[in-house]
């Protein structure tokens, strides 16, 4: 487990909802708040692919900030909605999309990484393995494609392997900034790779392609199969 002195998630959540739930005069539901999920491994467990320094900053600072700001925006949204303040509601949308997206994406990200000794990097088996071969020719071809698109992405964003629920096929796609994959269509995220500079810069500096090459050593295909 990551070394943090915190309450268990349940305690924290119940504390939070206790503090922040506001029962309105009409007795409607209380506001759901979000919290930073624990990592299922230590910060240093993904080395040398991703340094412990990056993992700690990425989780404790970046992701935490998205969670904090998402909660704040949702609170403001509820207040504005209850007052019928349409301009305020509309103005909040970008903060909700950005911070909410950041929380969603990073929660997926931690789950789809795993230390080598817990299966990180092990090639996909079963139906996912076959689907990859069928759609992309081979795992190498898929990795190549994702790396190329991830490297070509201008600015900040994510590169994804997704499942198109309607067409029942695998797709590779990218999203800008913190847009979650759902914004691109009826897509279930199977693998998501963060290509914001904060995800790799301290270790790989400007050489994003090296980061992309190495991250596959700690990608959890087991986790991806679960979502298939």
């Amino acid at each position, binding site marked *: 487990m990551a070394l943090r002195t915190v309450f268990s998630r349940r305690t924290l959540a119940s504390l939070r909802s206790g503090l922040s739930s506001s029962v309105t005069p009409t007795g409607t539901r209380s506001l759901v708040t979000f919290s930073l999920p624990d990592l299922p491994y230590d910060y240093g467990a993904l080395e040398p692919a991703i340094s412990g320094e990056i993992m700690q*900053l990425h989780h404790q*600072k970046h992701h935490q900030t998205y969670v904090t700001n998402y909660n704040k925006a949702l609170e403001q949204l509820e207040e504005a909605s209850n007052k019928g303040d349409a301009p305020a509601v509309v103005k909040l949308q970008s903060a909700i999309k950005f911070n909410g997206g950041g929380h969603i994406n990073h929660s997926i990200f931690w789950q789809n990484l795993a230390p080598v000794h817990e299966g990180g990097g092990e090639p996909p088996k079963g139906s996912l393995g076959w689907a990859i071969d069928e759609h992309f020719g081979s795992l190498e071809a898929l990795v190549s494609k994702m790396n190329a698109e991830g490297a070509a992405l201008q*600015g900040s964003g994510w590169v994804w392997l997704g499942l198109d629920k309607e067409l029942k096929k695998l797709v590779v796609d990218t999203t800008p900034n*913190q847009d979650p994959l759902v914004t691109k269509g009826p897509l279930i995220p199977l693998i998501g790779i963060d290509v*914001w*500079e*904060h995800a790799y810069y*301290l270790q790989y500096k*400007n050489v994003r392609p090296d980061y992309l090459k190495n991250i596959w050593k700690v990608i959890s295909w087991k986790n991806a199969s679960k979502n298939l």
Partner: protein
Amino acid sequence: METVATASLPCALFPRRGKGSPAAGGLASTRRFPYNESKRKCGAGKIAAKFELKPPPYSLDALEPHISQETMSYHWGKHHRGYVEGLNNQIVGTELESMDLEDIISRTYNKGNILPPFNNAAQIWNHDFFWESMNPKGGGKPSGSLLELIERDFGTFEKFTQRFITAASTQFGSGWVWLAYKANRLDVENAVNPCPSEEDKKLVVVKSPNAVNPLIWDYSPLLTIDVWEHAYCLDFQSRRNDYISTFMEKLVSWEVVSNRLEMAKARAAEREREEERRKQEEEHGSTPGDNEATEMYLDSESDESEAE
């Protein structure tokens, strides 16, 4: 598009205007931003040239302890250099090869339908502009007409600073934040203002994503801060707000910003004069002759002045 032939004449005929120097000689071109010309190597008689990586106006360690030499060596030495090399590769054998950087930016922005060289071209321009916006002994307050305009358009210098900082911390994702002089342009893209007044020539704080810059809205940029993570994550990690405050308090070169404002005002005035001239010519039905400024420009001893 090219009436002023700056782009087509061999560079030997035209001394480069200095960075940040006040608009000289009144030849403020209506489309040029004279304070950011990338150096070009001129081939014998041929115009197509490569862009060069321009160094900042100070050494890479000069901004310590605020921005580290390590950051500068990556930011300038790798990122900025990468944009230059990338663009040079992209323009080979294309119409862009003989164009000035700002024309490439405009052409490849392509009214929003961005073409691949845009990112490299705009990022070259943006980084040149950014280095020049800073000074190892920067910070403090502006003075003179710049301060007057800031106070007119933002209330106080402190309120401007607050607005700039807020914009920089809420530019979601990669991008830039600018102080710009918006002369006679409406707020929506670069639409022409049908009822221009002195008040419309104002300062604005604007944000732009990724490589976009206010040139594409026909604003005159005066100051910028780079809020791509590579600009600050080695020195400040996730603390973008600390980086922005440090920039404002210790690094902004108000002298450069003031000079840019003077050039922007001169450019706006020149443009107004030209539009007035054009309107009068239309009203009086005379054939629009050569732009007087153009003739002056071309009045050199060389035979090549005849070539267009």
